[in-house]
């Protein structure tokens, strides 16, 4: 079984994520796009693990870690977005310029 279709799918998923980050104005949607990128990476890990017949399942273990971290990251991210929304009454990422010089 070839790995190509999976890698293409992962690359597509990744590209969609990048697109989402760059184009979407809603902060929640940007967070979702980041999740897409992470999942693209997950797919790659699993595929390469399978291809290399790694009996220790390093790739899959990494995936589990990434999923965990992603969950934590989304938790923090959403909390930030929520606080920003409360203060600014908007979730438009272009209006958050707190980190300007």
């Amino acid at each position, binding site marked *: 079984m070839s790995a190509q279709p999976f890698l293409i799918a992962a690359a597509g998923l990744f590209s969609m994520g*990048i697109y989402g*980050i*760059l184009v979407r104005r809603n902060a929640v949607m*940007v967070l979702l796009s980041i999740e897409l990128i992470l999942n693209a990476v997950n797919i790659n890990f699993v595929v390469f693990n399978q291809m290399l017949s790694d009996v220790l399942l390093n790739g899959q273990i990494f995936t589990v870690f990434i999923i965990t971290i992603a969950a934590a990251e989304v938790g923090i991210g959403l909390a930030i977005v929520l606080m920003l929304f409360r203060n600014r009454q908007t979730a438009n*990422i*272009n209006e*958050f*310029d*707190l*980190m*300007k*010089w």
Partner: protein
Amino acid sequence: MVVNHSINLLAEGKISYTDGGIFAEFAWVIVVLPFIAALLITFFGKNLPLKGAEIALGSVFFIFLYSCILFYLNVTQGVASEFFINVGSIGSFQLEFGWVVDGLSIMMYFVVGTVSLLVFIYATNYMEGEIRYTFFFTSLTLFAGSMLVLVSSPTLLQLLIGWELVGVCSYLLIGHYWEEKENSSAAMKAFITNKVADVGLMIGIIILALTTGTLRISEILYQATHDYEAIKSVAYIAGILIFIGAMGKSAQFPLHVWLPDAMAGPTPVSALMHAATMVTAGVYLLGRLFPFYQGIAHEALDIVLVFGVITLFGAGLIAIVQDDLKKVLAYSTVSQLGYMVTAMGSGAYTAGLFHLWTHAFFKALLFLGAGSVIHAVHTNNMSEMGGLRKEMPRTFMTFIIGTVALAGLPPLAGFFSKDEILASLNHEGHTFFFFVAVAGAFITAFYMTRAVLLTFYGEYRGHGHPHESDSMMTTPLLVLAFLAVVGGWVNIPGIYTGFTTWVTTRKNGIIEYHPESFDYFALFSGLSAGLIGIGLAYYIYQVISEPQNGDNRIKIQPVWRILENKYYLDDFYFKFIIDPIKITFAKAVDKFNTEILDRFINNFGNAASYLGGVVYNRLDQGGIDKALNLTSTGTDTLGSKVKLIQTGKTQQYIMYFLTGVIVISALVLLVL
């Protein structure tokens, strides 16, 4: 000079001595102690309960005790030793300091210790509430210490150092009340007159050191007494130059002018200076170098004799016309120093030192008594005193004892010492000088009686109500009165001549005449001169007129005027020495200074200033500063440009980031 019948006690084996053991070895302690005490007083004195006087008293009390121990050792077994510390060398000259412990210096330690202790006790009360009380005790302690440096010196260099230190301290103390111009001028006069004399001493020391190749006094004296040719050739000139130094400190005519003016200082200073710590230095120097003078410089010794006689007579006459009680005593001191120098000049070493010894006690007594009177009546002028014998019985009694001792009546101290000087003048065949000295004894008795009658008899002519001084002041008077009575009993010809043995206990033997019994001719002349002096003064100032009118009876105008103007010596100095220097020479120097030296220095300064300006403007401001400023402004400008890319827009950052990733990936792919 006739030296027949003269004997050298040392050579004849009549004197035996030891090295003094541990006490002589540690005698340096009493020399160093006053200087430590002075430092302590300077730094901690003001905060102590007695404002520093306790440190001064403590140190001087220790000196007194130590000198008593040394004195006891010298009396019982004889002490003569010297100690050297080598601190380096200049060419072949060994630079040495040290201390001498022998009969002569022990006698001086004892005099300095005793008189200083009593004067210090007196001064704590006398100076109470006076300005610069603590500093006064610093200087007084230093004064005593300097004198100890002088008398303990085994080398001419250390002697010179002590000599100059004494001069400096006397300057500080005479000018204690320097707010008044008169007092600071008196201090200056003392210092400068001494300085003039010191030049002589310095040159004399240099000559001696260069010809003998050593600074050790004992070695110079050894060469002087053992037929060394080199020192013989310079003996006369060196002897005179050193005597000029002694003339300054011991106030010999014509360099005595500073001593009466030195009365501007507080009375305890006068007492200390006249009895122990300053004017005796010259006599001590002559005594220390006596074997040199006697061995090879007797021509110089003859000159010493002449000046001594002139001084004892001339100064005595001036004392008669003085109204200031302290000045009477001051001229009296000059006159008595004349006696000591006369004795030295006639070859009577012991007699000169013996008079120094007795004079120290009764003159300190007289000065402290005068201080007690002045303290009570607030004036120095005898015309505003009178009748004080009732109000101040203790001062009166002790002053009378001092007067009688000074006038030379038996059995008080002055009698024995003056008699010994007269006897030696008679023995050496100086008949004319002998009669001048007898006349001096008459004058001494006359002016002292006059002073006593003006001060203590008749009606009180001043203001206010004088009263007896505190016991802190009268106790030293009583002790000194005791010493003035018994001080002479240590050297009675034919009965007990301990003093002769004490002061001749030294490494370099003294050859002199030691009388077996009294010289009755000299004794009779001196005693009758003293009695006539007292009687005549009593007759003039008490019997035929009131004390305050007595002067009119003996006022022979031209003579009186000459005496009142002190032989016009001060005027002479001012007219022919000070003014020419002040007006002509000083102006020329000033001109040279402002027009040549100052111009040179100003030009130099201007050039330096200009150069500095160039360096500042071009190198500092234009170069280094500009470079530094450029660095900072450059950073600032660049920062303000670069900060613009920090927009705060997250998506823009991600855009940059991705662009970067793509570019780097592309590069990696293409290059590898």
